[in-house]
């Protein structure tokens, strides 16, 4: 069963967080992050070689979360595997007990730590969602019966702030057609655009979990604006953090405001603490979300 699916379908406001598997085999720091953020979240995304940089696989790390008593959202990118490997990993994920799946295209290898790597992109994320939906119905990509089906709760990424919106919306609708039931958005700064996205997807029944970043320092902002694709921190927001006497504290305040606002619009919030994991409980509490302590 997927607690995430149950909560969203019940109409509960969900909280998701995010952990990155280590570069290596020592899981200690990932476990610490999980223990810090996990108790406040319905589920935690486990990234898959994020930023096209090498990490331990999301498959193994997701299983670790499960063993720790938390619910993972297994991420799968199209960049590193062809359709044989993707399908075989989906089957593996299900047998390992992973119930939530987030399919993403993946950053181009040229932007990561192995720029010489061949980007696979045998399938795109829309097609991969379709493959997973097929497995839920009991068949592989070729339509052959599986000895044992999956029942993934399938999610995808959504980019409410990246214009042109009509192109984004068309893409999101194709993802829904392919079998996507929930979206996690890129970081949100413009609440009107989030509202526009949630309203546009309302008829499809797909749930929208809005991303909130903790912009802990001017350096992080510069990094996002220069290096992170598909995201720009608006000037007003950047100025607010830059001119603060305590940028980290201001970032926590900003994130708290955003979480509170998102609560009125979306079906959940996805908190990306960018290292300020320890502040997540405070953000959620101050936003009126976390009753647990």
């Amino acid at each position, binding site marked *: 069963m997927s607690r995430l699916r149950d909560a969203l379908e019940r109409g509960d406001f969900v909280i998701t967080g995010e952990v990155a598997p280590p570069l290596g085999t020592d899981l200690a720091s990932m476990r610490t992050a999980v223990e810090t953020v996990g108790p406040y979240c319905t589920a935690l995304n486990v990234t898959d070689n994020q930023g096209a940089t090498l990490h331990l696989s999301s498959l193994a790390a997701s299983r670790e979360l499960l063993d720790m008593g938390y619910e993972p959202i297994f991420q799968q990118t199209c960049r590193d595997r062809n359709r044989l490997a993707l399908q075989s990993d989906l089957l593996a994920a299900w047998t390992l007990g992973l119930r939530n799946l987030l399919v993403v295209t993946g950053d181009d290898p040229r*932007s990561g730590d192995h720029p010489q790597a061949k980007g696979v992109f*045998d399938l795109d994320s*829309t097609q991969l969602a379709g493959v997973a939906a097929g497995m839920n119905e009991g068949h592989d990509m070729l339509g052959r019966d599986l000895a044992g089906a999956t029942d993934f709760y399938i999610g995808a990424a959504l980019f409410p702030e*990246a214009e*042109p919106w009509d192109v984004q919306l068309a893409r999101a609708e194709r993802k829904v057609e392919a079998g996507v039931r929930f979206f996690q958005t890129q970081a949100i700064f413009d609440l009107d655009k989030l509202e526009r996205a949630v309203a546009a997807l309302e008829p499809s029944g797909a749930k929208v979990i809005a991303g909130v970043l903790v912009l802990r320092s001017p350096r992080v902002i510069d990094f996002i604006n220069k290096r992170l694709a*598909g995201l720009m921190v608006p000037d007003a927001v950047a100025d607010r953090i830059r001119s603060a006497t305590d940028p980290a504290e201001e970032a926590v305040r900003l994130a708290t405001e955003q979480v509170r606002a998102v609560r009125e619009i979306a079906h959940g919030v996805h908190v990306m603490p960018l290292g300020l994991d320890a502040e997540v409980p405070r953000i959620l509490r101050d936003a009126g979300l976390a009753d647990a302590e």
Partner: protein
Amino acid sequence: MIITKPRDWARIERNLTEIGARRVFIMGCGQCATVAGTGGEPEVREAARRLEEGGWEVTGWAVGEVTCHSGGTRLESRKHDTEIAGSDAVLVLSCGAGVQTVADAIAKPVFPGLESAFLGNVVRHGVFEERCQMCGDCVLDRTAGICPVTTCPKGLLNGPCGGMWDGMCEVVADRECVHVRIARRLAEQGRGAAGRIEPKDFSAKLKPGSLNLRETRRRGTGDAR
């Protein structure tokens, strides 16, 4: 046409040194490599000058009409058979297909003098862009005549990806996202939004491609791989 680029000259010199070649014949190409400005007469002369400067003897040179054409290249080689016979190696300023044609035609060590880059559109004189990778399963019918397989750096059939910002591409940041262009052109032509495109049949492009028109004509089919 096939776009070629100059190859690391030190590597060419190493190739010749490794087999102890002292006398070299140079072969260019009168077709693509001439247009690309990499293997025409001026470039062949320049290569000869550089070789001589490096201490090699250039026994002769030729710029065949179409170097990847087996018959033509055999003929061209025959015209120069004395010079070639007196050479230790042949340097070919053409794409890899031309180099192999020469290597088949001449029983001497043959080395590539250029890097083969892509099948290019001539956008303007001297400006080439890759627009088609000859995938064998063309989707231009669905994408308003803009190829996502080639011109989207990730080759996504359904896009844009999450890296698109303000209509621009994540990877080639000074270019518009291909999927934004496709959506716009489809809309301009009243063809609606791009529908979902199914996973591609990459077997249509399995190596090595071959097409024998004599046989297909005999059988009355046009299947090529």
